[in-house]
């Protein structure tokens, strides 16, 4: 089941320099929210704040109405650079969140293999990340994120480094697998077409602040950027 995420006048930044200020935003449970913005607009900072990797210097961040100030398995993150542990095989990478949770070996192996198959990587369980292409590594990352059934999935330009064809395949796969989980998704991208394809709702992070684009079109989003 998805969880609701809320920012209440939240501010995030690095070493005393604010990037996001006094931001109010609600992501409904089960919603697919896409955040679009130009480079340097604070998209990734916002996502790291929602993940709990950054603590707000002002305001609050809440998950299902409860404030939090650190990362949790309930809010799993998918990174642009794959974030896979290069010394662990595909199977052991996907098993990792279950191992951290303390799940028994046989059960976590079965679930990991089920997810590896769902992302189309059956037969590659024993490969190391460096033996896979960029698209395959992102599939592994997706499986590793979803295997522990998080309430929210935070995706930081996960397909940004992929070629056009692989990107389209990954977008299709993402919609397929997420449809079965019910997880809330916050997806960051600078690609307007990707946002239009995936989103239930689009928020544009512009220099003047965040704007929710109702009945979004390519032109309206570009206007707001």
């Amino acid at each position, binding site marked *: 089941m998805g969880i609701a995420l809320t920012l209440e006048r939240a501010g995030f930044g690095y070493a005393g320099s604010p990037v996001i200020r006094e931001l109010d935003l609600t992501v409904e449970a089960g919603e697919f929210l896409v955040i679009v913005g130009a480079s340097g607009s604070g998209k990734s900072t916002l996502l*790291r704040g929602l*993940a*709990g*990797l950054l603590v707000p210097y002002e305001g609050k961040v809440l998950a299902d109405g409860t404030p939090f100030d*650190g*990362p*949790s*398995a309930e*809010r*799993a*993150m998918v*990174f642009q*650079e794959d*974030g*896979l*542990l*290069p*010394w*662990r095989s595909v199977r052991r990478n996907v098993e*990792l*969140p279950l191992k*951290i*949770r303390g799940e028994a070996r046989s059960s976590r192996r079965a679930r990991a293999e089920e997810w590896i198959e769902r992302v*189309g990587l059956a037969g*590659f369980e024993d*490969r*190391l990340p*460096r*033996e*896979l*292409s*960029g*698209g*395959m590594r992102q599939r592994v990352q997706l499986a*590793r*994120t979803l295997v*522990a059934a998080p309430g929210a999935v*935070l995706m930081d330009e996960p397909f940004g480094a992929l*070629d056009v*064809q*692989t990107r389209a*395949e990954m977008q299709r796969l993402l919609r397929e697998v997420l449809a079965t989980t019910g997880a809330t998704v916050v997806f960051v991208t600078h690609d307007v077409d990707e946002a239009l394809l995936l989103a239930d709702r689009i928020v544009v992070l512009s220099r003047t602040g965040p704007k929710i684009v109702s009945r979004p079109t390519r032109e309206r989003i570009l206007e707001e950027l």
Partner: protein
Amino acid sequence: MTGIRSLERPVAVAPVAEAAKGRVLSLRWVVRLLSLGLVAAAWQVLTTVDARIGVNFDRLPSPSEVVQEFAQQLATSVYYLDLAQSVIRIVTGFGLAALAGIGLGVLVARSQWAADLLLPPLEAVRPIPAIALVPIAILIFPGDEQGIVFITTAAAFFPIFVSTRHAVRALPTLWEDAVRTLGGKRRHVLWHVVLPGALPGIFGGLSVGMGVAWICVISAEMISGELGIGYRTWHAYTVVDYPAVLVGMASIGVLGWLTSAAVELLGRRLTRWLPRAEGSLRWASR
């Protein structure tokens, strides 16, 4: 599926090319053995004719004398006792250094408090060569044995400690962030990210540490040992038994090579995930 096809192995390398590669490899081994043989032959000639050509070979034992001495020593139990004693000292000293160096290296890299507390005294001691600690070892330890192990530990500790600290600090934050957003706590980050991620750097420090540990154990044995290959080599020199000195030197070389190779092999096994450059593959194929 994009990328999967690219993983398929290429068509098997032609057997003809494989055979040619094998012949080149055999030829290279012949050249290497020939090179060793030539050096030994030159040594034999120079010592047999008592050459004095700016460098004096008249008192240096010939290879045949060294081989003869080596055969004699192999038949005595003292030789094996010396080897065993030196190996015990290395294993103990190096083992303690590895535990302390890796543990403290991780600690100071991950905790600012630990760094503030531990780095000043460690940095104050670091520039002192371990062998210069011999007088301290004699003062603070009741027996020679503890003193030698102390010197060995002190020598190996710093390369391991410094390499570990740098390796941990150089880890990309991405891996840690990934594990934390998968529910990982501090201990999970340590076990699943910090230790495996820093292993390549740690093994660099272990290799250097093993080298300096041998230098110091042999030096310490020469100064204050009663057993051990360093002590025996120095003893042979003092009684003008030069073939035995060379047997000692060769034995130290072989032991040093074996222990360094063990560290190297373990390191390679534990860091198989590292991409190997073409150059290192060539080395591995030898």
